[in-house]
């Protein structure tokens, strides 16, 4: 932001940043940082802090980030207690310093969730999400076996609803914001994306059962409708995906029960 005198407005900040090595307990470190331009992104502010640490010969803070345009889902950070910070609908990389005040103390922590162990400082292991997708978050279609694209008409409202859910970037803010560390918003988004499309029907029940089973095994908690996930989702995914996940799960379980032949269940394999 440029002031009337043509100079960029800057902030002086106090930062409390989490420091931790893998498998060891962590603690906050306090640092001061001056002359942070209000036009800088939050991660650019962290870059400035790290450059200051290098000058002092100290180790930098490790944090995850990549595209810095809000789409790759790699950046995390709990800022003043809120995953991705105080502004709704943005990732940490798209949070700008004009949203903070001069002299403010900012607390920066990693995602806090049992299923996301800390790797170093602010970087956590989110491989639980990948495991959930690997167990069913796909439509089985071998390369080369697809029919002509327009043979599968998809009504526009259905395509739009699938797209709404498919916007999930897999960042994990839903888990980090949830008291239970639940991944239901993430799983619900993927279930909604695939289960409502005509292409996704063949594997609908199997997908739902398998993803829920893997979600539980990966250490994510249950949903008790706090709604924090919706409030902190940078892509504004809404709670109704969880309702639909519950519906599809119930449907699949009931069908599984009534189609049981007495042989051991294969659901979720």
């Amino acid at each position: 932001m440029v002031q009337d005198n043509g100079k960029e407005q800057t902030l002086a900040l106090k930062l409390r940043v989490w420091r931790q090595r893998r498998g060891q307990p962590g603690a906050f470190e306090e640092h001061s940082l001056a002359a942070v331009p209000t036009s800088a992104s939050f991660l650019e502010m962290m870059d400035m802090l790290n450059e200051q640490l290098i000058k002092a010969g100290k180790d930098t803070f490790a944090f995850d980030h990549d595209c810095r345009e809000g789409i790759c889902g790699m950046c995390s950070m709990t800022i003043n207690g809120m995953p991705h910070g105080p502004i709704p609908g943005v990732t940490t990389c798209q949070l700008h310093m004009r949203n903070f005040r001069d002299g403010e103390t900012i607390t920066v922590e990693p995602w806090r969730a049992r299923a996301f162990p800390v790797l170093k400082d602010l970087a956590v292991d989110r491989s639980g999400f990948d495991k959930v997708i690997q167990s069913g978050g796909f439509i089985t279609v071998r390369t080369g076996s697809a029919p002509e694209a327009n043979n599968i008409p998809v009504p526009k409202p259905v395509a739009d609803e699938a797209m709404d859910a498919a916007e999930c970037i897999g960042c994990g803010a839903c888990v980090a914001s949830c008291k239970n560390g639940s991944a239901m918003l993430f799983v619900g988004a993927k279930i909604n994306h695939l289960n409502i499309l005509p292409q996704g029907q063949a594997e609908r029940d199997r997908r739902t059962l398998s993803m829920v089973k893997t979600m539980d095994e990966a250490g994510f908690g249950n949903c008790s409708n706090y709604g924090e996930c919706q409030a902190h989702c940078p892509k504004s995914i809404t709670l109704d995906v969880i309702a639909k996940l519950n519906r599809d799960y119930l449907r699949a379980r009931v069908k599984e029960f009534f189609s049981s032949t007495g042989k051991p269940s294969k659901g979720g394999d």
Partner: protein
Amino acid sequence: MNLDSKIPAGPLADKWNNHKAKLRLVNPANRRKYHVIVVGSGLAGSAAAASFAEMGYEVSCFCYQDSPRRAHSIAAQGGINAAKNYQNDGDSVRRLFQDTIKGGDYRAREANVYRLAQVSTSIIDQCVAQGVPFAREYGGLLANRSFGGAQVSRTFYARGQTGQQLLIGAYSALSRQIGLGTVKMYTRHEMLDLVLVDGKAKGIVTRDLVTGAVESWSSDVVVVCTGGYGNVFYLSTNAQGCNVTATFRAHRRGAGFANPCYTQIHPTCIPVHGEDQSKLTLMSESLRNDGRVWVPKNKADCAKPASEVPEEARDYFLERKYPSYGNLAPRDIASRAAKEVCDEGRGVGQVVDGKRLGVYLDFSAAIKRLGEAEVRARYGNLFDMYENITGENAYKQPMRIFPAVHYTMGGLWVDYNLQSNIPGLFVGGEANFSDHGANRLGASALMQGLADGYFVLPYTVTDYLAGEKSGSRPSNDAPEFKAVVKDVNDRVAKLLSINGTKSPRYYHKALGKITWEKCGMARDKAGLEGAIRDLQALRKDFWENVKVVGSGDALAPELERAGRVADFLDFGIMMCLDALTREESCGGHFRTEFQDAGEAKRDDAQYAHAAVWQWTGENQLPARHVEPLVYEETQLSTRSYK
């Protein structure tokens, strides 16, 4: 250097089918005996790894991110081209081929480009079946939009997140294979070197970014799909981690690097705002469908708010200069036109380093014509992103945009089979050089990544493996592997031991300043010669004075950055040398000495070839070789969009 392009004989339209019919096969029962390494998990890498695993090969896939879903293909916004002709507006495979080869200013390999256009239609089929939620008409069929450099509507899109949705499609196919145990996925692993045994690529050496462990992996074939080198300019639209290390390390082991000077500057990015900026953000080219680009006619108006510049005092310079394509002129042309008006002193926006570097992208006419709701439906997420970054509402005042480095057309040299000059080293997606010539058209990168991954590499890699005895791959205890592991460990130790005074980011910024100023949108002999000298000095300084904090046995972002910057320094010299020795202008490569009143002036007699660089040793300039580009069916003409 062996640069046999292996273009099949016969008419262009039959080459790929004839070639496929001759490629050798591997029996399904034997495929599991072959180990395929895929490096990178973007569109090309994920698609290739999933396809190889579906065929029955044992596959290992590596990426530096924490999940394969995060590769930078995800950031592509606008769309993907395919010659479906669903709009009945005259599209065809040949038309897409012609547009692409012309868009590349006749510096791409004809046969590769034709194949790309041919397989484009299968890509859409594949992605739709995977559940990619492309935009639809109310009848339920697929919608299209138009894009730069074409006069038909052939671009398929998923809001402003087409790359994300296509990557999630490829990631889901890959994930399915990981779940089945047919792909072993190694995330947070960075390829730091290539291992050759008897002249063939037989494995790689990686560093586990979490534990610091340096490990080697042996395989029957190595497929590198690690993207482009745009971050040699420091500020670009690339992700922070995008780097040239995998391809440059392969280059150091003997792989030719083709056309490094072909870099694409994208016209519609948010202008630079300050010194601490780490990244430039692209606004999709699709915005140019409805936005009009202008600057004030008079310098005196440049400091005024846009609303105070009357209609008759505005210069819609793209519409004026290129009436038939207007605001949809190809990227290189639109970028240069923006630079030109800013160099004349007619730029708008904030003054950075004494200049206003920005032009308006104005939606007021579109809002009047379509209504704000419709503009919001088409571009809402982009307007939100713009407001988020700049704090300005683009429904009320025009956006300000300026060109930024976006894509790199150069890459490792490959033949028609996408095999480099090192047998057993295949290269897909942005990492290779083959399809876009000197400039890439919008919505063609996604097309190429998926074409290589789904529909080309599975055939050509199989042909290579059919010639390799199954079970013949060396153990990674072999001396060749141990030697490369030692090289990598030595280099890591060296970086950590210099303990100088300047951070890796300092060098990266300094490198970017030189390359952007001297090898950016406009280049000339004196500037490039100076840049090479400056970069050599900077490289020397780096190896004496860099300070890398952190330790080798944990997550160490500064060590990662230092290694990448070191390779970028060597690479930057090669890029400038390539620009210096190509004494013509073509596509994104604009030498100010070679122009016709601002338009690129090609020299087909001297330069209708790919320049391929060979590594000659530490601190030596690389050697230049050429692959002549033979045009069998295309008439080379002056590229005009007027």
